[in-house]
């Protein structure tokens, strides 16, 4: 695990322990609910790791069959989000008519989805409705991308609902 996503408080990828004993935040989500949602996402064929993060890269919860893979994924989340935000700003600036940048322009970092393809398999970062949270999903191979994107697309609202109820816990499977 490294520097990117902030593991503090929310549970590091390497922590390996459910976070149920931690002091609950005022609006803490039911850990079982988070675990259930992440498990469901992880049950998707080809999914190898799943995590909720904020758009700032703070890790809220994660789950994986493979601890090393999860740590590797978590370590690059912040960089990936920063790159996506920077590209989103560039794209927004290029797409907006001159003089209309501002409220009417695409908000900074308003990417909808980022796909990173590595030798170990692609990683999908999907912005959840509300723009505050990102679902991170690592996949086995590029052949799983279509299925994963479709599955996430139909569940964005539900995922956002869970993520927005201030979450804690690292749920290693």
């Amino acid at each position, binding site marked *: 695990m490294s520097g990117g996503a902030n593991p503090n408080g929310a549970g590091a990828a390497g922590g390996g322990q459910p976070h149920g004993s931690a002091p609950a935040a005022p609006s803490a989500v039911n850990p079982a609910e988070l675990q259930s949602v992440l498990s*469901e996402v992880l049950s998707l064929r080809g999914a190898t790791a799943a995590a909720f993060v904020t758009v700032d890269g703070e890790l809220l919860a994660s789950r994986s069959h493979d601890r090393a893979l999860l740590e590797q994924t978590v370590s690059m989340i912040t960089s990936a989000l920063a790159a996506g935000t920077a590209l989103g700003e560039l794209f927004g600036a290029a797409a907006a008519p001159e003089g209309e940048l501002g409220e009417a322009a695409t908000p900074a970092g308003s990417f909808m989805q980022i796909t990173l393809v590595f030798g170990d398999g692609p990683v999908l970062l999907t912005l959840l409705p509300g723009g505050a949270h990102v679902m991170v999903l690592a996949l086995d191979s590029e052949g799983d991308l279509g*299925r994963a994107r479709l599955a996430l697309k139909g569940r964005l609202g539900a995922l956002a609902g869970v993520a927005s109820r201030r979450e804690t816990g690292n749920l290693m499977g």
Partner: protein
Amino acid sequence: MVNLEDILARLSRSLVGCRVAAVGSMDGLLVERHPAVGEGPAAQQAPGAAELDHVAADITSGLSLLAGEVSAQLGSRIDELIALGENGGYLARRVDDDLFCFVMVNATADLGSVRREVEAACRALRGALA
């Protein structure tokens, strides 16, 4: 999660000469397929992963092109694309704005049955995804 593979498996089994049934998305990515790579009867082995990825991308291009001026001239969107050769062919049908279902069949397939079964599968897919 919706198990699209069950619907595709039913479609594949119901069609004589079907080598593969699949769902693709209009961004060019293959979503699901049946049978999996290397499965199916030896006489009609399913195409490999890379091959079917290319097919899905090509069908996406075809449907996108046909959704333009051709559809405009017809007054309604082209929802079905049939490509036939001596050894078989493909039939692709839009499920909705984002997805399409397609089958690859060999020369023994009956086109009428293929059209009917694919249409039924598309209805089932719409229901499953609703």
